[in-house]
C-alpha cells in the first residue's frame, strides 16, 4: 500500500509539474530546497497569496510534501494551505493523512489535538471512516483539550457525511457526560449542529451544565444558554401561566399598568398554584451572574433566557445589563435595540426607568436612531408622553430626513395609543405641514390622515388646510392621502371638494397611478353626494381614466362608472353605491413592526431579520403539563452504590443495601422450598387479606406489627388464594445473608438487629400459621391438587419508582393475586413504599390517573406520614379491562409529584378457578378452532418434571391446577378478571423435554400473549 502511494505520489507530481511549470517555479524550487528558511519564505508568500484570494492550487504537490517538515512554522503554514485546498485535490491530500494519523498517537496532548483538528478539517469524503475512528478515540482521550477538539471535529464530519449521524450522536452523548468546563461549550455546540432535536440527551447533564456554566469560556456560554432556553421550554411549566391567560383575555392588561394586572391576579387565587421546578430555578440562578459578562453575546443570551423563561417579576433584572450594552459598538447597539424593541412591547415597565438612555444623538447612525425611536414609542404612556413628545420635537429638526419621517410616524403612533395627547400631536403635525421640506410635509399628511380618521367631525379646518396643500405638495403618497381625506369627508368641506376635483381633473394625466386612483375615488364620492356640481367633472375624469395606460385605472374607471351612473342596464348594486363608497371605515391601527416578533427566540438571527433563517430551532411553547422532572436526577456516586440493584440483588455489601436487604428478606436467594401446601377456609382467607391491608387485627399484636414491617410479597412467604375455598400457603425458609461488613453507627446497628429479630419472628409466625392450617386440613375436603402443587418461589415485584428518581422515595409493586375486596373485577396491586430519604414524607396519595377507556382504578387510601427510613404497604385495585395497557398516574407527596405507571403481565389479568377434569375437557371442547393456540416447545432442562412445570406456569399466570389422571399432562384453569372468560392451559410432555402447550381462551389476544409468557417461563 505504501509503495503504491509513493508511486502514485511520484506520478501525480510529474503530471502536475508538466501542467504548471510556467507558474510559481521559484516557489517550487524554494519548497524543494533543504533550507527551512527558504521553505518558510516560500510558504509565507503562498499564504499571503491565499489571503489575497489568489489561486495557488497548482503548488499543491510541492507543498504537501512538507507536511512532515520539522520546522513548526513551516508545518503550520502547510496545514493552512492543506485545509484550504484539500477539497479540490482530494487524491493528493490523502498523502498527508498518515502524518496526522501518527500525530494522533503522539504522547503530547497538544500535538494529538492539533493533528485531529487538521485531519478533521480536510474535507475529503474518503477519509470519513478514519475521521470517525479518530474522533471516537479522541473522545475518550485523557486530556480534556483533546476531547474538546473531538467535540469540534464532530460537526465537521457531520457536514462532510451526514450519514454518520447516529455514530456521532453516540460520541456526543459520551462527551456531554464530560465534567470539564473545557469540553462543555464545544460539545453543546456539536449537539446543536448535529442533533438539536435529541433533547433527551440533555436530561442527565442538565444540572451539571447549569453548575459548570459560569466557568465555561464565553463563546461556549452563549451556545449552552441558548440550548438550555430551548430545553427549559420543553421541560418546565410557564411561570407566567396565570398571567398569560389574562393577557390573552383582555387588551386592557396589555396596555394597562402593571398594578392592574397584579390586582387581577390576586382575584384569580383559586387557580392552581404554580410551583417552580427547582431545576428551572437553578437555571435562572446560575445564569444571572453572567449578565455581568464583558461579552455582549453572553449578556444577550442571558437576557433572552430571562425573557423567555423567568417569572414576570424577575425579568426586570436584564434591563440594566441591556442598557449597558448600548454603550458598546454601534453594531452591538443595533442588535440590542432590535431586541429591546421587541421586549418593550411585552414588558414595557422593565425599560421605563431607562427611558432617557434611548434618547437620540445627532451622531447616531440612522438605523440606530430609528430603532431608538421605536423603543421610545413603545415606552410612551400617559405619564411620560409629554417628555417624549418634547424630545420628538427636537428630532423633527434633524438633518437626517429619513429619521424625521420616522419621528413623524412615531408621533402618529403615540397619538393613536394615548388618547389624551391626540389633539396635541395633531396640532403639532399640522404645524409641520408648513415645513420647508417636502418629505416632512408628505409624511405628516400621511400620518394626519390616519389620525383624522379617528374623529373627522372635529377637524374640518385641518381638512381644509390640507386641501390647499394640493397645489404645492408633489409627493404622490401625500397627494393621494389628501384626496382620499377630502373624498371621505366631503360633507365636512362641501365647498372646497368640488374645486379640488376640478384642479385634479386638469392635472389628471400627469399624476402618478396612486393619485389617479384616488382622483377617481374622489370623483365617485362627490358624484354620489353632490352630483349637481360634479356630474360633468366626474364624467370627464372617468373618460380620461378609460384611456389610461394602466389597466388598474381603466378597470377601476369602468367599474365605478357602472356602479354610480344609473343606466337601464345597471344592476342591483348601484342602489347601494352610496353605502359602498361612504361606509364608515374603521380607523387604522398603528402597530409596532416589532409586535409579535417574540415568537422568534430573542437574540437570534431569525428574530433580527423577522424571518426564519436556515437551521433555526423553533422555541417550543411551554408544555401544558410538566414532563417528568425526575429524568434529570442523577445518581450521586458516593452516597448510593450502583443503580438498578434494588430489587434483585445477589450480593449485599453497602450498609444501606444490607439494611434494606434484611427488611425485605430476600425471596430469590433461597431455593424455593415449599414446606407445605395448605387449604384454608374462607375465614382465614379474609383475615389474610385484611392483614395485607395492614388493617386487620391479627391474633398477636406483635406479629401483626411484624407482618406490616416485613413486606408480604418480599417475605419468604407466598400466599396464594384460590377463588373457592381452597388456598394454600407456601412458606419458604428465609436465608438472609449475614452482614458482611461491620456496621459503623450504633443506631444503624440497632436497627439491623431489630430487623433480624423481626425476621425470625416472622418466620415463627408463619410456621405457626402453617401448623394451624395443616390441622384444619383434616377437616376439610381434600383437594387432589394440594399434594402436587409446589408453588412458585415468590410473587415477582416490579419497580414503580426508583429511589434516585423518587428522591429518596422508592416504590415497588406486585400483583398480590388476592381478590380485591371492594371490587371483584379489579386486580389487586400491592405497593410497598420505602422512604430512603432523611426527612419524612407526608400525604402520599395518587392523582391525575390516566387510563385507557373502560379501565377503572380504586385508589389506595392516603398515607399521611412515612417517616424517614420506614416502609409502608398499601393496596389498590385496577380494572385493566383484560388488557395489558398501563395505568398511568401521579404519585404525590407533600412536596413532589412523580409520574408512574403500572403495567400488568397478562398472567395477572386472571384469577384461578377450580374445575374438575371432566369440566375442563368439556370447556376445552367448546373453545376450539380460533380460540385454541398450540405451540410445540422444548422444555428447559431444569423443568422437565411435573413439579417444576406446575411451579413455573403458576408463577407466570394466576391459574389453578386442574386435577388430572395422566402424569404426562398438566392442566390449569382460570378466568379473566374483568370479563370472566375462561382460560385453559394444557402442557403435555413428551420424550426428551419436548412438550405441547395448548391454550384455549375466548379472548384470543389474551391467549396469544399468555402463550408467549408461559412459553418463556417453560423454556428459559
Amino acid at each position, binding site marked *: 500500500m505504501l509503495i503504491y502511494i509513493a508511486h502514485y505520489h511520484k506520478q501525480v507530481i510529474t503530471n502536475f509539474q508538466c501542467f504548471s511549470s510556467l507558474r510559481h517555479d521559484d516557489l517550487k524550487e524554494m519548497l524543494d530546497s533543504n533550507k527551512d528558511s527558504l521553505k518558510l519564505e516560500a510558504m509565507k508568500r503562498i499564504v499571503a497569496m491565499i489571503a*489575497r484570494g489568489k489561486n495557488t492550487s497548482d503548488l499543491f504537490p510541492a507543498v504537501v510534501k512538507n507536511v512532515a517538515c520539522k520546522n513548526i512554522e513551516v508545518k*503550520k503554514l502547510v496545514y493552512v494551505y492543506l485545509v484550504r485546498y484539500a477539497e*479540490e485535490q482530494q487524491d493528493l491530500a490523502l498523502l498527508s493523512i498518515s502524518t496526522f494519523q501518527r500525530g494522533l498517537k503522539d504522547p503530547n*496532548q497538544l500535538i494529538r489535538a492539533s493533528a485531529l483538528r487538521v485531519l478533521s*478539517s480536510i474535507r475529503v469524503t474518503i477519509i470519513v471512516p478514519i475521521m470517525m475512528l479518530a474522533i471516537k478515540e479522541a473522545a475518550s482521550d485523557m486530556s480534556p*483539550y483533546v476531547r474538546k477538539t473531538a467535540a469540534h471535529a464532530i460537526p465537521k464530519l457531520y457536514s462532510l457525511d451526514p450519514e454518520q449521524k447516529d455514530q456521532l450522536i453516540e460520541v456526543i452523548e459520551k462527551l456531554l457526560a464530560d465534567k470539564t468546563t473545557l469540553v462543555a461549550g464545544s460539545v453543546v455546540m456539536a449537539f446543536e449542529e448535529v442533533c438539536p432535536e435529541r433533547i433527551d440527551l440533555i436530561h442527565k447533564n442538565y444540572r451539571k451544565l447549569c453548575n459548570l456554566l459560569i466557568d465555561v469560556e464565553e463563546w461556549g456560554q452563549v451556545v449552552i444558554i441558548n440550548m438550555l432556553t430551548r430545553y427549559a421550554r420543553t421541560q418546565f411549566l410557564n411561570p407566567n401561566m396565570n398571567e398569560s391567560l389574562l393577557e390573552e383575555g383582555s387588551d386592557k392588561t396589555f396596555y394597562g399598568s402593571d398594578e392592574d394586572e397584579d390586582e387581577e391576579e390576586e382575584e384569580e387565587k383559586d387557580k392552581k398554584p404554580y410551583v417552580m421546578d427547582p431545576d428551572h430555578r437553578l437555571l435562572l440562578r446560575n445564569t444571572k451572574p453572567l449578565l455581568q459578562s464583558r461579552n455582549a453575546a453572553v449578556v444577550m443570551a442571558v437576557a433572552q433566557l430571562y425573557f423567555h423563561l423567568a417569572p414576570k417579576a424577575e425579568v426586570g433584572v436584564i434591563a440594566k445589563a441591556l442598557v449597558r450594552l448600548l454603550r458598546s459598538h454601534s453594531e452591538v447597539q443595533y442588535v440590542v435595540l432590535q431586541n429591546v424593541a421587541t421586549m418593550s412591547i411585552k414588558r414595557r415597565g422593565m425599560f421605563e426607568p431607562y427611558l432617557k438612555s434611548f434618547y437620540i444623538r445627532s451622531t447616531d447612525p440612522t438605523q440606530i436612531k430609528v430603532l431608538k425611536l421605536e423603543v421610545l414609542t413603545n415606552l410612551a404612556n400617559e405619564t411620560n408622553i409629554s417628555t417624549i413628545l418634547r424630545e420628538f420635537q427636537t428630532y423633527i429638526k434633524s438633518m437626517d430626513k429619513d429619521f424625521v419621517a420616522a419621528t413623524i410616524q412615531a408621533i402618529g403612533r403615540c397619538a393613536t395609543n394615548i388618547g389624551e395627547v391626540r389633539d396635541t400631536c395633531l396640532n403639532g403635525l399640522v404645524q409641520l405641514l408648513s415645513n420647508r421640506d417636502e418629505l416632512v410635509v408628505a409624511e405628516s399628511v400621511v400620518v394626519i390622515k390616519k389620525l383624522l380618521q379617528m374623529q373627522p367631525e372635529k377637524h374640518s379646518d385641518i381638512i381644509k388646510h390640507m386641501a390647499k396643500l394640493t397645489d404645492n405638495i408633489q409627493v404622490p403618497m401625500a397627494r393621494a392621502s389628501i384626496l382620499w381625506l377630502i373624498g371621505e369627508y366631503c360633507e365636512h368641506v362641501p365647498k372646497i371638494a368640488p374645486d379640488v376635483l376640478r384642479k385634479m381633473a386638469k392635472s389628471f394625466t400627469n399624476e402618478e397611478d396612486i393619485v389617479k386612483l384616488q382622483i377617481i375615488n374622489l370623483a365617485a364620492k362627490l358624484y354620489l353626494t353632490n352630483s349637481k356640481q360634479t356630474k360633468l367633472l366626474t364624467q370627464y375624469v372617468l373618460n380620461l381614466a378609460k384611456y389610461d395606460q394602466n389597466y388598474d385605472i381603466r378597470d377601476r374607471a369602468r367599474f365605478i362608472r357602472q356602479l354610480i351612473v344609473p343606466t337601464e342596464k345597471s344592476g342591483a348594486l348601484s342602489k347601494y353605491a352610496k353605502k359602498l363608497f361612504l361606509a364608515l371605515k374603521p380607523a387604522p391601527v398603528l402597530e409596532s413592526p416589532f409586535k409579535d416578533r417574540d415568537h422568534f427566540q430573542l437574540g437570534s438571527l431569525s428574530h433580527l431579520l423577522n424571518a426564519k433563517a*436556515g437551521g433555526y430551532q423553533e422555541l417550543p411553547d411551554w408544555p401544558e403539563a410538566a414532563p417528568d422532572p425526575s429524568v434529570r436526577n442523577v445518581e450521586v456516586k458516593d452516597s448510593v452504590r450502583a443503580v438498578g440493584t434494588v430489587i434483585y440483588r445477589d450480593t449485599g455489601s453497602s450498609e444501606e443495601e444490607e439494611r434494606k436487604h434484611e427488611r425485605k428478606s430476600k425471596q430469590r436467594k433461597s431455593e424455593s422450598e415449599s414446606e407445605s401446601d395448605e387449604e384454608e377456609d374462607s375465614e382465614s382467607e379474609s383475615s389474610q387479606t385484611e392483614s395485607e391491608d395492614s388493617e386487620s387485627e391479627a391474633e398477636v399484636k406483635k406479629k401483626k406489627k411484624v407482618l406490616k414491617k416485613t413486606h408480604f410479597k418480599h417475605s419468604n412467604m407466598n400466599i396464594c388464594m384460590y377463588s373457592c375455598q381452597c388456598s394454600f400457603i407456601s412458606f419458604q425458609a428465609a436465608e438472609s445473608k449475614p452482614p458482611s461488613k461491620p456496621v459503623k453507627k450504633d443506631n444503624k446497628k440497632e436497627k439491623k438487629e431489630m430487623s433480624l429479630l423481626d425476621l425470625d419472628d416472622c418466620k415463627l409466625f408463619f410456621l405457626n400459621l402453617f401448623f394451624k392450617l395443616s390441622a384444619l386440613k383434616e377437616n376439610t375436603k381434600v383437594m387432589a391438587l394440594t399434594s402436587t402443587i409446589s408453588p412458585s418461589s415468590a410473587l415477582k415485584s416490579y419497580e414503580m419508582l426508583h429511589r434516585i428518581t423518587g428522591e429518596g422515595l422508592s416504590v415497588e409493586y406486585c400483583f398480590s393475586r388476592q381478590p380485591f375486596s371492594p371490587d371483584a373485577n379489579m386486580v389487586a396491586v400491592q405497593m410497598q413504599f420505602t422512604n430512603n430519604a432523611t426527612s419524612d414524607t407526608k400525604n402520599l396519595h395518587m392523582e391525575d390517573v390516566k387510563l385507557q377507556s373502560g379501565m377503572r382504578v380504586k385508589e389506595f387510601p392516603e398515607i399521611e406520614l412515612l417517616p424517614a427510613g420506614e416502609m409502608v404497604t398499601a393496596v389498590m385495585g385496577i380494572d385493566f379491562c383484560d388488557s395489558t395497557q398501563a395505568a398511568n398516574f401521579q404519585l404525590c407527596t407533600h412536596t413532589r409529584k412523580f409520574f408512574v405507571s403500572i403495567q400488568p403481565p397478562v398472567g395477572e389479568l386472571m384469577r384461578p378457578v377450580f374445575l374438575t377434569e371432566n369440566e375442563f375437557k368439556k370447556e376445552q371442547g367448546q373453545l376450539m378452532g380460533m380460540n385454541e393456540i398450540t405451540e410445540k416447545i422444548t422444555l428447559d432442562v431444569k423443568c422437565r418434571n411435573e413439579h417444576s412445570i406446575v411451579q413455573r406456569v403458576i408463577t407466570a399466570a394466576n391459574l389453578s391446577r386442574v386435577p388430572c389422571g395422566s402424569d404426562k399432562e398438566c392442566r390449569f384453569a382460570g378466568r379473566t378478571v374483568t370479563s370472566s372468560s375462561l382460560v385453559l392451559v394444557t402442557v403435555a410432555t413428551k420424550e426428551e423435554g419436548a412438550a405441547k402447550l395448548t391454550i384455549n381462551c375466548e379472548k384470543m389476544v389474551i391467549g396469544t400473549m399468555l402463550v408467549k409468557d408461559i412459553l418463556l417461563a417453560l423454556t428459559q
Partner: protein
Amino acid sequence: MILQQQISVELNMRNSPSDPPCQSALFKGGHQNITFHQHVNPSQFIVWELLQDGPICRRLFSNSGNFWHTGTISCNIPELAAEMIHSLFLINHSGDIFLEKHWKSVISRSVCDYFFEAKEKAVDPENVSPVLQTPHHYLITIYRDKLFFLSVIQTEVPPLFVIEFLHRVADTIQDYFGECSESVIMDNVVTVYELLEEMLDNGFPLATESNVLKEMIRPPTILRSVVNTLTGGSNVGDTLPTGQLSNIPWRRAGVKYTNNEAYFDVIEEIDAILDKSGSTVFAEIQGVIEACVRLTGMPDLTLSFMNPRLLDDVSFHPCVRFKRWESERVLSFIPPDGNFTLMNYHVSSQNLVAIPVYVKQSITFFEMGPCGRLDITIGPKQTMGKTVEALMVTIHMPKAVLSANLTPTQGNYTYDLATKVLVWDIGKLNPQKLPNLRGSLSLQAGAPKPEDNPSLNIDLKIQQVAISGLKVSRLDMYGEKYKPFKGVKYLTKAGKFQVRT
C-alpha cells in the same frame, strides 16, 4: 442559506452504455463534491451535495458529462445546520477586498457585492446595516478603524456572537501590531492569517484570549524581526499553548518580571445631552478600570473601593470572582498578564452628574442672503477644582454651509468642506479668559435656509479626578511573597457629550 440538499435521482449512471450501472461515483467540479451512494436499486441514488449557489440540477448535469443518464430528478431539502462563521473578508474604505479567510469550503468573493450595493446606498459607512440578507447567505459586518470586517454566515447564529467575535479579531490585531489598518494587516498578513486560523476552528471560536494567542504566535518586535531575518527563526511559538489547558486561560504560567508592578486607571466618561438653554436633558457616567499588571508568578489580587455603593451596574473581565463582588463588593482576581480591562461600570443614576463646562452658543442663518453667524463661548462649571484639558468642539454643519470665516480667541479651528465638519481645538480651559469662537458662515447661494441648527459635540479631559467620586481604597496581593509597585490613576473624559442648539 441551505447548505446541503438531499436529492434522490433516478438515473442510470454508467461510464459507457455497455457498462453496468455504477455502484457509486464521485464527481468533482471546482470545490463541489457530489457523491453517489447506491440506494434501493441500482438505478436510484441518493446524492449529497454541498450547494453553494445556483440550482442543483444544472450542476448535476454539467458535471456528469462522463456518464450516461436518463430519468428524473426530484429534490427534497432537509435543513442541516452549518457552522457559525463561514468566511471573513476584510474590506477597506474604498471597497477593495484585501484579505479573505475561509474556515470551511471557499465562498466566492462575489458574495460581497450585496454588501457593496448596500454601502452605495448608505451615505455614511456607519449607516450600512450590520446584518444583510442575501439569497444564500447572511452577511454580518462591523466597521472598525475605517475597515469593514465582513463575515459570511449560512445558518442561524446569534448575531451578537458574530459581532462580538469580529470585534475581538480587530482588538487582537490592534493588540499585536499597535493599530488596525490595511497597511499594517498587509505587512503582517501571514501572522494575521495564522491568528485567524487559531481564533476560529470550523467557524467556532477556539482561542480568543490574547494570552493564549501570544504563546502560540508571538507578536512581532523590531528586535525579533531582525533576529529572524538573520537566523531564519520564526514568530510561531515553539512552546505549545498551555494557557488553553489551564483553568485560567487568560494567564500564562511562568511569568517573570524584575520590576513587579500593578497599575490601575480609573477612567470615567460623561455622557450627556444638554439642551439649548444649557439645562441637562440626560446625563450619566460610565466608567472603566483599565489595568496594567506585570507581576511574577500567580498573584491573587484584591482591589477594594472606598465607596463601592456608587457602582450601579458592572461588567467584569472573566477573571473577576463574581461571588466575592456580590458578597463583599471587592474585586478579587488572578490578573491576566499585561494590559486588560478589569471592569466596566455605570454610576447609579440617582447621583446628580456634575457637568464640567457650560456652553453659550448661537448659530443663526439669515433669511436674507446666503450667510449665517456663529458665536460660541465655553466656560467652566463643575470641575472639582481641576483644570479642563484637551477641550475640543466638533460641529456637523448642515450641507448648505459652504465655508466658515471665524476667529477663535484660543486654539484653532478647521472646517472640512467635504464632510462639513467644523472642529475647534481649544486645549486647556482658562477660567480667567474664556475661549470664544465667532464669525460668519457662508451658505450655498440659492439653497434654502437650513431648518435646523447643528448640535455641538464636546470633548474634554480632567486629570486626577473621577467625576463620580469613586476612589480605590487598597490593593492587596496574596499568593506571592514580593512587594509590587502599585498605582491608581484617575481620569475624567467627555463621552457622548452633546449640546443641542
